[in-house]
């Protein structure tokens, strides 16, 4: 019975069907299945599959994003049950994402958020046009171990350096690692501003994030 349910759970994620994901998550609670196992043996299998397919060029961004959304929907149903059991899903890390102040470009950063979230990170996405104090404040508030900053303009990428300098001034690094991204960002820039990592795309960002939080093998 469980095996069949797990298969259906993985499939609904692959299909990007949030409604069925919610339905199956509720059903698993009724059947008193363990919520953590439901996530890891059911839904996560689907996320991993679609991520692999995307990497191979066999799946497309809408499928990836919809799988991420379906995963989020299922986890939202199961998390209260985990809490009741006094357990929590082991997250790979806690991330604050933002597009820097003066910059309103969002899609790349949102995709990174979706990918990180689907890969097992807890993600707080602050949105666009976020000043340094807000980004750092949120990181401290949720005890984040990673900040991800996006900038799409050469005029706004300097804000990434400001955030890093502020973190250094407060002595918050290396506790909080910083990854950056955006069209004008180069490896030279990353070295110059002393960021910890960068990626040119959302898929690459997952690996960078895992490496930065010491979970590169997962």
């Amino acid at each position: 019975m469980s095996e069949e349910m797990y298969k259906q759970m993985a499939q609904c994620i692959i299909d990007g069907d949030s409604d069925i994901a919610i339905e199956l998550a509720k059903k698993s609670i009724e059947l008193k299945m363990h919520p953590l196992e439901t996530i890891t043996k059911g839904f996560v299998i689907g996320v991993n599959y679609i991520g692999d397919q995307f990497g191979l060029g066999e799946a497309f961004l809408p499928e990836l994003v919809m799988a991420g959304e379906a995963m989020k929907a299922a986890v939202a149903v199961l998390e209260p049950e985990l809490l009741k059991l006094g357990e929590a899903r082991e997250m790979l890390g806690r991330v604050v994402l933002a597009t820097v102040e003066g910059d309103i470009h969002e899609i790349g950063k949102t995709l990174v958020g979706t990918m990180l979230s689907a890969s097992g990170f807890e993600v707080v996405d602050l949105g666009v046009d976020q000043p340094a104090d807000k980004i750092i404040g949120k990181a401290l508030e949720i005890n984040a171990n990673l900040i991800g900053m996006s900038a799409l303009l050469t005029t706004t990428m300097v804000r990434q350096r400001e955030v890093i300098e502020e973190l250094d001034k407060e002595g918050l690094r290396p506790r909080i690692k910083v990854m950056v991204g955006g069209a004008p960002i180069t490896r030279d820039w990353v070295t110059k501003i002393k960021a910890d990592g960068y990626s040119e795309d959302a898929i690459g960002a997952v690996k960078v994030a895992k490496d930065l939080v010491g979970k590169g093998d997962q």
Partner: protein
Amino acid sequence: MQPKLTLLSDEIIARILEEAHELLLCPGVKVQNPGARDLLATAGAVMYPDNDVVGIPASLVRKALESVPREFYLYDYDGNPTVHYGGDDVHFDPGSSGIAMLNPETLEHDTTETEHLIRLLKVAEQLPQYDAQSTAVICHDVPKDIQDSYRLYLVLLHSKKPIVTGAFTNKTVQEMIDMLSIFAGSAQAAREKPRAIFDVCPAPPLIWSNFGAGNLIALARAGIPAEIVSVPLSGAAAPVTMLGTVTQHTAECFAGIVIHQLAQAGSPIVWGGAAAIFDMRKGATPMGAVETAMLDCSYAQVAKTLNMPTHTYLGATDSKLVDAQAGLESGISAMVGALSGINMISGSGMLDFLACHSAEKLVLDAEGIAMAKRMIGGVKLHTDTLATGFYDDKINFKGGDFLKQKVTMQLFQKEQHLPSSVIDRDSTRAWKAAGSLDAFGRARIRVTELLASYKRPEIDPAQEHRLHAFMLDLTKKTGVDILPLLEHYQPA
């Protein structure tokens, strides 16, 4: 709505037709085939026996145009009608009759042999952008007398697609017609579901040579489709003006259609060509010139006023390598051809004024063709509302919202063409990780993949046996007992 490119006004087209009729009477058309002259004389044309010139009155043209089929199909091996000549349907096939092939390792233009044609066939067979195969290159490793038939033989063995071909003599066109009949089982079967169409060229200006006119007659009588490939060269073998060139092209097509329909009324024939400008610095005939594409678009427009099926030569380049010039000339001209609604556009894969073929260019050109076909697919209405239906309570005013919608997944492949790995849309990181290749480098990899994945079509053994026997018989008549070894067969 299929987008269309038109360059001529109705008034100009009327004048082109009028002056083409005048040209057919004065200076007339040189018809070097006695059988064609007999047909024309019997039909009432004005004969000038001293110089083989024939004056063709407008009444003969009108009569011929009345009996010409306005549409017909070419069929694949399984008997499916896959190429539609008529209306504004657009198809592409690789260029024909190259004499060299780009060696992707040395970048030399190697003289073509059996292996080169097979390489091209294997690649084009797997690219859906090519609706038909062509007898793409001449195989110099077989006796000259059988080179025409041998090319068709190789295509029949290696492809299921319809075939654009042609013959260089009156003897070989008949042999090729016989080959098609034998392969199809009977002359009637070959006629009812034609697998191949034959390019037939008049010589500019206003000449139907002995073998050109002879081919027309043989094809008409066999009921095998013919495709007129009129090649006026603006400024050298045709008037320097585009309108003058298109008018000469019209006259040459008119004359060809008259001869063809006199031989057998109702036989299928196509209004086609490989018109080009003449380069006044190099004495060359640039196939990648924009004016060449404009000539083709113009004559296709003339054909469409007569409701004739159409063909042209575009999608080729004059560059010697698969480089930036090759990409821009081939891509732009393929787009012009598609927007002109031309039924068969030949030329892809070809470099160097149609002399040299390249398998790597075939895969790159397939991407240009895909873009051109996407363009003529037009902007479609897929949803009840245009935009308002996409916005609901789940929209949170964040970029990327639409990636979450089911309808995005359902429709994006209808709206967007997904190119193959030949087109680079990677991030710089991924591009470097893949070897920092340019388009030619990526095309080389794709060709290697396609050659590895090719599987020869399953052909009825009895048919294949008949084909081998026919080809060997032709070969032996040239005093040779053996043909080049094929992967699956030693024809001897």
